[in-house]
């Protein structure tokens, strides 16, 4: 199986809504050693100007990777997941994610470049809120080994 460079430009979603919860934010904050009280306590978050607990910087990966899963499992894209390593990641937050947000995600294959037996597959996930206003853009590149 090899990555199909003609898959560039394909778009997936929007998928079912994702509801950001206090429990998930707390769990993720614990997992990445995020220590600010605003991740854990609504009253601290409110004192800092948020409506509820605020997600850590990289929390959006939880939402984005669910959408990216549709790319890596699309047989017409041709990614062999056992040969994948994560090459890079970028989060651009248009506003912070907070508990209570209900968001949807659309993911697009932005580029596929191939050289020296490696395919670099870059996806861009756009996360928007219930008013269709942008929340976060997550750009992720996977390096796929193309063994003979």
């Amino acid at each position, binding site marked *: 199986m090899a990555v199909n460079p003609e898959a560039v430009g394909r778009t997936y979603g929007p998928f079912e809504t994702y509801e950001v919860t206090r429990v998930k934010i707390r769990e*993720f904050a614990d997992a*990445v050693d995020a220590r600010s009280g605003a991740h854990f306590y609504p009253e601290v978050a409110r004192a800092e100007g948020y409506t509820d607990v605020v997600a850590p910087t990289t929390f959006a990966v939880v939402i984005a990777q669910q959408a990216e899963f549709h790319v890596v499992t699309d047989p017409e894209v041709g990614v062999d997941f056992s040969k994948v390593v994560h*090459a890079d990641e970028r989060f651009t937050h248009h506003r912070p994610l907070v508990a209570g947000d209900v968001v949807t995600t659309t993911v697009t294959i932005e580029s596929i470049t191939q050289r020296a037996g490696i395919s670099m597959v870059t996806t861009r996930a756009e996360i928007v809120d219930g008013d269709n206003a942008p929340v976060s853009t997550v750009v992720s590149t996977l390096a796929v080994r193309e063994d003979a």
Partner: protein
Amino acid sequence: MSDETTPSFDALEVGQVVASRTVEVTRDTLVRYAGASGDFNPIHYNDVFAQSVGLPGVIAHGMLTMGLAASVVEEWAGAGNVADFQARFTRPVPVPNPRAAILQITATVGALDHELRSARIDVTVECEGQKVLGKAQAVVPC
């Protein structure tokens, strides 16, 4: 977001270390991150599987390393105040069992944008003296 938690732009200088942290990453850390993130790739918990795909053994999720790095910046910047954060995963972080991989995380002012009043924070993450992230940069409005 509030004035109390946002760093003061005028007090910043390029090259200044604004935050640092040493983090121990154990197999427990990886299991916890797998559950929290939903990333259950077995290279992050199963040595036999990891070796079967050419790795020395279990390695940390790149996104765990990036998340730990982000937390160092965010504690300084204020929760929710990291507008942009990017990184390349340049070197895997093997996590022994038992014991821990030790990550030394340092956040430094890389550049200041006086017009936008935002700081570019460059983050280094070292494991056994070697950098494991490339071009790890955060943008913090101040």
